[in-house]
């Protein structure tokens, strides 16, 4: 109940944030521009609208997760509202989970709107529905939930600027972890290869949630692959939230 109340308050607060609308406006602009670009592509209209639409939704969703996520805890400390909250009969973990769920709810609405826009534009250009686009957006949403958890983890012990930088770094590494591993296999010596393999296993692998290319070309996707990616994503989010709770519980707010 307490978690729900905090989540809804966080959601209401987030939807009043101007940065959300600024990012959304740019996302709509880029998704809309994909239709114009597609007309120049010689028979590749549908591919370009789907590729750019999914990429825009993912990228701008990440910006929303980072820029709203990093301020979730630090803003409460800055405004001193946190002191009033922790003085109440509420566990700190409830506060943190409420904040996380509130931001995930905001992301669900914004990414959902972007996904529906891409879905409708792809239908307009292609002349047929591509339901797989919604599955691709749903999996990408899991990746965004991981990025949000990373942002909230850093915001429990760091400043908003540093949290943004760290989260952005984790996002970049996460998107490239598959490539990094294959580079290591090809070029690195045994020591570096082991270190990179270790990093690959521990850092979030966001490339697991990318099924866009399969959807765009109508290639088959194994349901086990999707389910394993979903299980990996949910488990990773739990790990991040537990670490964040551990740090937040021990933090001294005097």
């Amino acid at each position, binding site marked *: 109940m307490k978690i729900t109340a905090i989540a809804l308050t966080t959601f209401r607060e987030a939807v009043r944030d101007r940065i959300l609308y600024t990012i959304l406006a740019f996302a709509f602009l880029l998704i809309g521009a994909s239709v114009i670009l597609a007309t120049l592509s010689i028979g*590749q209209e549908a591919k370009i609208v789907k590729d*750019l639409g999914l990429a825009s939704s993912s990228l701008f969703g990440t910006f929303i997760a980072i820029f709203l996520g990093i301020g979730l805890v630090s803003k409460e400390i800055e405004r001193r509202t946190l002191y009033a909250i922790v003085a109440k009969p509420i566990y700190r973990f409830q506060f943190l989970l409420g904040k996380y769920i509130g931001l995930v709810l905001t992301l669900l609405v914004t990414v959902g709107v972007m996904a529906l826009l891409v879905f409708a534009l792809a239908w307009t250009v292609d002349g047929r529905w591509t339901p797989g686009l919604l599955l691709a957006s749903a999996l990408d949403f899991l990746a965004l939930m991981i990025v949000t958890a990373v942002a909230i983890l850093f915001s429990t012990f760091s400043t908003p600027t540093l949290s943004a930088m760290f989260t952005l770094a984790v996002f970049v590494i996460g998107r490239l972890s598959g490539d990094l591993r294959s580079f290591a296999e090809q070029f690195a010596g045994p020591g570096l290869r082991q270190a990179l393999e270790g990093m690959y296993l521990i850092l979030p692998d966001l490339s697991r949630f990318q099924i866009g290319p399969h959807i765009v070309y109508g290639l088959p996707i194994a349901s086990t692959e999707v389910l394993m990616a979903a299980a990996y994503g949910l488990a990773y989010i739990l790990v991040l939230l537990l670490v964040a709770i551990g740090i937040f519980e021990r933090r001294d707010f005097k």
Partner: protein
Amino acid sequence: MSRPLLHPSRIPWLALALAGGLLFGVVVPLQRQAPALRGAGLEDRVLLLPPPAALRVASLGFHGAAADAVWLLAIQYIGGHLASDRKFPELKRLVETVVALDPHFVDAYTLGALFLNYGTGDVAGGIALLERGARANPMRWEPPHDLARTYYLDLKDYRQALHWFEVTDRLPGRPHYVPRFVARLYAMTGERETALELWRAMRDSATSDWVREIAEREIAKLEGQPAPAR
């Protein structure tokens, strides 16, 4: 008593007026000159395009969108050179970058090979590109079909053409005429009819005027030739 020019209530209006003046007095005239300069800009963008491995990293996993961007650059490059010298020295690199980023981009293999073949005369380059496309997309009929067409029409290598038409014949969605061509190749007959049918199919399915122009030119050439005596 009149208010000074820089009175706080006037500043927003002055700023807006100044912005409007700059937009229409400076930005728009400068932008009008851009199309004249664009040719050189495009060449620079093509020459400075990073290698595919670097682009894969820089695109942060959004490989499809990055391939689309390079593809749009390739289209501008082809269009620019078709309108000027009809030479395409950087085309191969551009198309190879596109398919390195997105190996399933079948049209990049087929259109790229067509322009390499008929634009630069690099038939071997076109064949290598199509073979790469066939390997990366074993369930798509377009790359083996275009390989068969190239061997048949350009290299007159009927053994290779037969092999690739047979590969095409086994794939879903292949054109209706493929089994007929396989039969004719086994019987070693109907060379001119096959060639005309291939070019007409290309003309009818063309998504760009450039491809249609190539097909119509070849059809006119074949129709100008007398039919071989039977």
